[in-house]
């Protein structure tokens, strides 16, 4: 195995484990919004790592362009979709869960 292949295997392994962690996040977090946190970002890096690993395996120009394009699309579309879902929950009146189960009240200023 060449150095590049070891790097690729490491990136793919780490990325897929991150994606597994994301899945567990969606499964164990207490409410809709916290699950979105796992969905919105856990996946993004995991995917980027796996695809970067595949990139290290080489190939012709089109493969590189396609992999980069997929990463690019995921980086644009994933947060947009996450926001769209969060917003759908917000406008349909899902109340965010807070520790202790009290009323979360109106949104605060940060640090207040």
């Amino acid at each position, binding site marked *: 195995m060449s150095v590049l292949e070891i790097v690729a295997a490491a990136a793919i*392994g780490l990325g897929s484990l991150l994606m597994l962690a994301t899945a567990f996040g969606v499964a164990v977090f207490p409410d809709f919004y916290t699950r979105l946190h796992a969905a919105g970002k856990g996946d993004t890096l995991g995917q980027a790592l796996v695809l970067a690993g595949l990139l290290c395996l080489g190939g012709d120009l089109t493969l590189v362009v396609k992999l980069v394009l997929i990463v690019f699309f995921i980086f644009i579309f994933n947060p947009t979709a996450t926001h769209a879902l969060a917003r759908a929950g917000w406008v349909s009146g899902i109340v965010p869960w807070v520790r202790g189960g009290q009323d979360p009240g109106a949104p605060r200023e940060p640090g207040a």
Partner: protein
Amino acid sequence: MPVALAAAVVVILLGVLVLLRRVIVGPRLLDRVVAVNVIGTKTIILLALVGYLAGRPGFFLDIALSYALINFVGTIAVLRYYEGRVRRGEPVEEEA
């Protein structure tokens, strides 16, 4: 290298399995949508990995790209369904 790729496929499929539980138990419609959306993004990566395993990466990456686009359009469609119902004051959740 095929071993690493196959291992990654198995790990990701395990994640999909965990997410399927969320799809089934909900409890809200939107929880299911979130889980399905994450499964969708995992599918993109699975397609890429399977493409390398099958020795036809270009072909499978094309499919993955198409899937990424369609997945996004689908999620936006769900958001619109929600917004429309909220705007008309209709209930958005199935009765538990």
